[in-house]
């Protein structure tokens, strides 16, 4: 059956021992937009992204990506997706070019040198291509990780805190690049972030998580208006401080 959504999550649950890290959530992401998973620490964002990638098996519920069951068609779907996170890394002793080459072959790119040149140019990495990844600055590493996540020109890009621990200039550069990539490629981006200004700038939809449950969702402007607050950060704080289960 054809689907109108790139991601459709239904009744998704992950239980670790007695803790429900993700507790029966439902949400969907439209094609060609940037959406965000928001929530405080321990809300279930990273757990949800890990399940969307198949790195973590759900306790129950379903995940459909591009209309197909993620658990059954994982590798076929991973070919069309990519991921970046500050919590995973690349081999430090390999140069940037070597790292990108290895991943290019894993994604079976047709013309590896050309793609690496193209991304290096777009992400201002040409000067560091032959330097060991471990010797780069945090900003350069973030751009390399972004290049890795764009090697296969993914139709769906999952980003966990894409600008965490970056200086404002580099963070702005990354946001600008993502905006441009989304606009020119028509890709769908789902990101988890604690930076509300970033989410307001990049995202057309947000899903608010709290203690493993979806507590609200919608466009940032609509959420701000619904809560009668000034910006998304105030909405975030309002939801985080409300008693459990209460929503607007």
């Amino acid at each position, binding site marked *: 059956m054809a689907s109108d959504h790139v991601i459709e999550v239904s009744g998704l649950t992950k239980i670790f021992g007695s803790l429900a890290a993700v507790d029966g959530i439902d949400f969907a992401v439209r094609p060609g937009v940037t959406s965000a998973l928001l929530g405080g620490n321990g809300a279930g964002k990273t757990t949800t992204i*890990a399940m969307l990638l198949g*790195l973590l*098996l759900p306790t129950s519920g379903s995940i459909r990506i591009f209309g197909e069951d993620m658990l059954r068609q994982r*590798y076929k779907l991973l070919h069309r997706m990519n991921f970046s996170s500050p919590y995973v890394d690349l*081999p430090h002793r390999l140069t940037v070019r070597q790292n990108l080459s290895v991943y290019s*072959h*894993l*994604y*079976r790119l047709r013309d590896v040198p050309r793609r690496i040149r193209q991304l290096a140019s777009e992400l201002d990495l040409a000067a560091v291509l032959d330097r060991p990844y471990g010797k780069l600055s945090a900003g350069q590493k973030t751009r390399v990780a972004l290049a890795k996540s764009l090697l*296969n020109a993914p139709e769906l890009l999952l980003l966990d805190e894409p600008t965490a621990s970056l200086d404002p200039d580099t963070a702005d550069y990354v946001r600008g690049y993502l905006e441009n990539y989304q606009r020119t490629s028509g890709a769908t981006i789902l990101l988890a972030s604690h930076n509300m200004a970033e989410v307001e700038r990049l995202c057309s939809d947000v899903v608010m998580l709290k203690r493993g449950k979806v507590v609200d969702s919608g466009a940032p402007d609509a959420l701000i208006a619904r809560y009668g607050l000034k910006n998304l950060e105030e909405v975030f704080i309002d939801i985080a401080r409300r008693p459990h289960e209460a929503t607007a």
Partner: protein
Amino acid sequence: MNGIIQPDVPFSPRRIGAMVLRHIYLLRASWPRVLELIYWPTVQMVLWGFITVFLAQNSSYIAQATGVLLSAVLLWDVLFRGQIGIALVFMEEMYSRNLGHLFVSPLRPYEMVCSLLLMSLLRTLIGVGGAALVAIPFFDYNIFELGLPLIAFFLNLIVMSWAIGLLVAGIVMRYGLGAESIAWVAIFALQPLSGVYYPISVLPGWLQPVAWALPSSHVFEGLRELLFHQTVNATLLLNAAWINVIYLIGGIAIFLGFFHAARQKGLLLHVGE
């Protein structure tokens, strides 16, 4: 599907090659890693070589076949280097916190297993092969003169090492780098039972069936038959081979089982101690 990538396939030699390439890049960038590959096999070989020189003049057992200790040392290192090769290559991905990236790519776990086996083979050939070459000028002993049986001994030992290496890698994946010391010690539990330096008949009767359940016991018994009696005992080699088939299937199944467990517990994204 965009034009940048080729269609996905369920088994890709190119992906396996990419993983091998990743570790060759690592070896090329780190001479201490290459030195470590050949250092211990060579030190072991030199030590046992001098012991052999001494015992050849003072022991009728060694005098009958002067290469028995050196061959045993070199072949034991095939088992050890093969096993540690798998475990270390896998742990490199954990040290570099790279597993999360690898397993959100289309890399299948069985392709990862293939790359581990290939890297283990390469590392063992460099390490033990280097030591075997050094033995020629040092002790006038050329293990390659064993001929075709050497290939059978080597294959049996490397396959057994893969099975144990995959078991160890699986344990480290499941229980974290806190379990990495198992990689260094696991194989030595089998050394007394493998009859590396003495016949299995030396072991107590109740322990001998356990020893014969190891492919390595058949290999080292076969080695002694070849050196002392100049006969190739095909039964021993075939026994080692079929036991190895069971070991390897078990090793792969356990690794994939631990991989599944790691996905259930979310360990691939948060590796460490």
